[in-house]
């Protein structure tokens, strides 16, 4: 069977209704109103093809992988390893052996913190992050830093929500052991100039990890073009199952890293006088993985690729611009994050109304948004807000969804005005 030929779809040809039809969950009512799902930044909904891939595995050929000589185990193993190829192709990794399957972006970052960073960390060393990081790209570094008297420092963010590249440059020094930065901010929507950051860091011999959780659903990711050393991402934000993620890392880095967790599947030979470990990626995949979830991950990235990341990015860009224009017209509403280069995330606050109340009233109108600190408390502090409301877009959203959001916000204004 030859690989399907995937041609990019021009933005004008993006048929959002045809896309929506592939998401069964969207066709429902909430409190008597059509569901308007604007929370893909927290987790994206799943197209039928992904649901089917997971169900097909369990119904048709499920077994443990890399363990059995029987037919089902071989079929599951083949499908699992095909997913590794699909995910590798999705981020243009040079080899599928550079893809480690994990539970999440969070676990991928913890793996790098423990297996890559910790062995070389000493007192006063620094891990450079940014003020716009998700807690999952802060706390794992703090945990290892605390054990060695090292510290986590944060590059500043401008009032528009862009990374201050000069500020970042000034913070890179001989003490910096790693730069860890998000590709796309989950609160601000800002797309960070990763290739530029990598050049700045590499010029001083500092490796770069990219938190790609919000990158992969919105942008065509090419880890070779970005030039980074680690790229961590999750399936569930890119229309795949929850509980599955991946780390891409350069082969030579993975080869030098000790195991993170011990268990089955990651060994070569075990004895009480000593144990030797499997090569990457299996070295980092202890225990039975989420076999069907990984297969669903493969289906999700294939589906996304076939739709065309450029077409998706164009569609979401249009929605984001439209949403920012509509929301800016609402009295007392302030947008948080107005970067020039922005993916499908719109955060805002309203005078005299707490985001939690906004969320509840919007839900009454069938509009699902996220409210709170978005696991980015340092960023909330940076913008001096306790929380924000956030609308985030996926492939299935339409300008009518934005209109429903704006109408529901008028209702909030009316109630709390």
């Amino acid at each position, binding site marked *: 069977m030859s690989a399907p030929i995937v041609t990019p779809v021009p933005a004008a040809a993006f048929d959002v209704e045809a896309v929506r039809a592939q998401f069964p969950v969207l066709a429902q009512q909430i409190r008597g109103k059509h569901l308007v799902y604007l929370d893909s930044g927290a987790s994206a909904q799943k197209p039928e093809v992904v649901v089917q891939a997971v169900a097909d595995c369990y119904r048709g050929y499920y077994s443990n992988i890399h363990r059995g000589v029987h037919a089902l185990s071989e079929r599951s193993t083949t499908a699992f390893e095909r997913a590794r190829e699909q995910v590798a192709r999705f981020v243009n990794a040079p080899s599928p052996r550079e893809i480690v399957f994990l539970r999440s972006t969070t676990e991928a970052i913890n793996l790098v913190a423990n297996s890559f960073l910790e062995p070389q960390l000493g007192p006063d060393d620094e891990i450079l992050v940014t003020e716009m990081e998700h807690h999952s790209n802060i706390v794992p570094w703090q945990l290892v830093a605390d054990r060695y008297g090292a510290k986590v420092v944060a590059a500043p963010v401008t009032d528009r929500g862009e990374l201050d590249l000069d500020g970042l440059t000034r913070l890179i020094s001989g003490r910096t052991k790693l730069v860890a930065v998000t590709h796309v901010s989950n609160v601000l929507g800002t797309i960070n100039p990763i290739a530029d950051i990598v050049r700045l860091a590499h010029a001083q011999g500092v490796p770069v990890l990219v938190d790609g959780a919000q990158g992969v659903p919105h942008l065509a990711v090419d880890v070779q073009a970005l030039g980074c050393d680690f790229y961590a991402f999750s399936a569930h934000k890119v229309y795949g199952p929850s509980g599955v993620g991946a780390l891409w890392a350069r082969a030579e880095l993975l080869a030098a890293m000790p195991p993170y967790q011990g268990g089955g599947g990651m060994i070569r030979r075990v004895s009480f006088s000593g144990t030797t470990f499997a090569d990457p990626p299996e070295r980092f995949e202890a225990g039975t993985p989420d076999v069907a979830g990984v297969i669903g991950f493969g289906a999700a990235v294939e589906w996304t690729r076939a739709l065309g990341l450029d077409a998706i990015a164009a569609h979401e860009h249009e929605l984001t611009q439209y949403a920012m224009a509509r929301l800016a017209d609402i009295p007392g509403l302030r947008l948080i994050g107005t970067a020039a280069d922005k993916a499908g995330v719109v955060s805002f606050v309203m005078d005299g109304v707490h985001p939690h109340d906004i969320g509840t009233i919007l839900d009454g109108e069938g509009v699902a948004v996220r409210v709170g600190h978005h696991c980015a408390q340092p960023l909330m502090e940076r913008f001096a807000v306790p929380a924000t409301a956030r609308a985030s877009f996926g492939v299935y959203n339409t300008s009518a969804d934005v209109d429903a959001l704006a109408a529901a916000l008028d209702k909030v204004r009316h*109630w709390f005005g």
Partner: protein
Amino acid sequence: MSDLRELYQEVILDHNKRPRNFRVIDPASHHAEGFNPLCGDRLTVFIDVADGVIRDLAFQGQGCAISTASASLMTEALKGRPVAEVEPLFAKFHDLVTTDGPTPPGLGKLGVLAGVREFPSRVKCATLAWHALKAALDHRSAPVATE
């Protein structure tokens, strides 16, 4: 829509906009901070107790309409009451916002928060000030979190 109207009653919107006893008591015999990490709500409850009676009760902080109104109504309900009434009133209030059925008697104005029971994610907002009050009376100094 009726659920939402029930939740955001005029009394609640009013207490959110103009919270009563929204101030610091200094010196206070007791105080404690309440924090809801889920939504970032943070408030401090101040109490002045003498002879087993709550002489003064106030709060400060920032939160959603439900937590602010609930704190405001709580101060009104308990000011001048014996400390011994706090526990049983909180128990009744907790029932009010978590269980179906008729409003327990003796809650007075606090009954306007009955709508919270239809929104389980908001129960923590409604009870934040109460948890802080209890922590203050127990002289617990660490902020009490609802998570």
